[in-house]
């Protein structure tokens, strides 16, 4: 895309982003093909950081691949796997190869991953990481030491409008915004009323909000129900609806939500995820009238 993610987001355009998981191993072929397919239809490409605590390639390498292919990446940085030294040095390294957009996240608990005996680091949390990244951008490390050359960073954070209860989530979102988040990428939303409630709260700030859209598929219905996907809070009636749905119906459900969000002018863009079905993202966009 010609314009940067930051420019696109601040231009008032309804922004479209998606995220990809990095490979478990060295085979980048499938990912390179996907990036090629998606680069002209999305404004930015999120790259996850050991998603669901599964050990995968570090996101900076795939972000670099995205940059080479001409799409601007949003690098996810999880506090779960690194202490404050490693987080800062990785942010500097990322910026040095042109990665500017950083999504600061806590990270799913290691219990969900494939290294369940790993120590969850959480030396600092996502609020701290935003503060630290902002300080780096202003030329100081976390200990207050001056940097020789500071990174250009555009910082974002996550939030979950479907969280129950929502109020503690909103208090934390306020802290993230205050700490330096310029944009929020929400966890997948399903109930438009919950998103409205969330937006009513954050609209007092200047933060840009990109709503999460998730393609639900029948073969994963039981996992939506049992909490296998942390932060994915699918209402029970929707899970029932998905159970018997064909591909067209699944796409329509995601597309209808996109239409509803866009027509109500609720937020600044959407972030579509379709784990294992990323090739369907352009079709989901079409179903959403984009």
């Amino acid at each position, binding site marked *: 895309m010609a314009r940067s993610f930051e420019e696109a987001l601040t231009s008032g355009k309804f922004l479209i982003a998606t995220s990809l998981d990095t490979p478990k191993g060295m085979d980048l072929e499938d990912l390179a093909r996907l990036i090629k397919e998606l680069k002209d239809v999305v404004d930015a490409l999120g790259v996850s950081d050991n998603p669901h605590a599964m050990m995968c390639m570090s996101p900076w390498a795939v972000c670099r691949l995205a940059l080479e292919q001409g799409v601007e990446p949003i690098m996810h940085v999880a506090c779960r796997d690194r202490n404050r030294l490693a987080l800062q040095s990785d942010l500097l390294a990322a910026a040095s190869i042109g990665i500017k957009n950083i999504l600061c996240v806590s990270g799913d608990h290691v*219990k969900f991953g494939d290294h369940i005996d790993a120590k969850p680091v959480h030396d600092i949390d996502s609020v701290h990481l935003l503060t630290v990244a902002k300080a780096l951008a202003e030329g100081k490390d976390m200990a207050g030491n001056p940097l020789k050359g500071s990174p250009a960073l555009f910082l974002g954070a996550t939030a979950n409008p479907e969280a129950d209860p929502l109020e*503690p989530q909103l208090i934390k979102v306020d802290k993230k915004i205050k700490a330096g988040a310029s944009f929020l990428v929400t966890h997948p939303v399903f109930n438009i009323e919950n998103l409205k409630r969330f937006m009513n709260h954050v609209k007092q700030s200047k933060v840009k909000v990109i709503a999460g859209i998730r393609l639900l598929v029948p073969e994963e219905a039981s996992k939506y129900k049992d909490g296998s996907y*942390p932060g994915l809070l699918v209402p029970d009636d929707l899970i029932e609806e998905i159970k018997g749905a064909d591909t067209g119906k699944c796409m329509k459900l995601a597309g209808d939500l996109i239409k509803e969000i866009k027509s109500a002018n609720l937020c600044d863009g959407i972030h579509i995820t379709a784990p294992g079905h990323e090739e369907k993202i352009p079709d989901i966009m079409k179903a959403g009238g984009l």
Partner: protein
Amino acid sequence: MIVAKRKPFNEIKELISGSKKILILGCGTCVAVCLAGGEKEVAILASQLKMALGLVNEDVEIDELTIERQCDREFIEEISTKVNVDDYDLILSTACGAGVQLLSDVFDHKVVVPALNTTFIGVAEGPGMWTERCRSCSDCVLADTGGICPVTICAKGLVNGPCGGTRHGKCEIDPEKDCAWTLIYNRLKKLGRLNRMEQALPPKRYSVQQYPAKIVHEAYRRRYE
């Protein structure tokens, strides 16, 4: 108090294998309260070991003794007034890890092995149930969090609010566990102190945690100089 749990029986058997005369040494404080290593538990373990070893015709002599505390030299010194430690090949301690270590220091010519896994600092919720409440982080935030410790109760130890996984007020990793930040929010709301949650807490200061930690009371400083 310190809460501990007995090691699996087969592991204990393995730890004592080869020894012919064993002293099982109980601790009468925390681990007695949590039914893991007091006088009764020492008696049960001794009986189980005698039966198990008897079944395979192993000629092992097992004695029992429980002292008030194994984490205090004053009480450890009492052991020698009751038994001759040199009579034993091995001491199987049912104290917490601190007790086992002090015992090893005092009787540094003896093999001392643990019968328990020390698990957490916690409270008794009711008969037979204990829950963790403190990570002894040396940087207490309870004043800001309504007396509920996020470092301990939150599965990720987050100090600035919940992650995105709160599900009906429960933790994303276990639907049986309360989300620490839902508890904190509700408590602070009840106390009229939600403003405490609105302030960002700084990162934990790990520099204040010494490993191993040591405290010398001001009044005793000269004694240890």
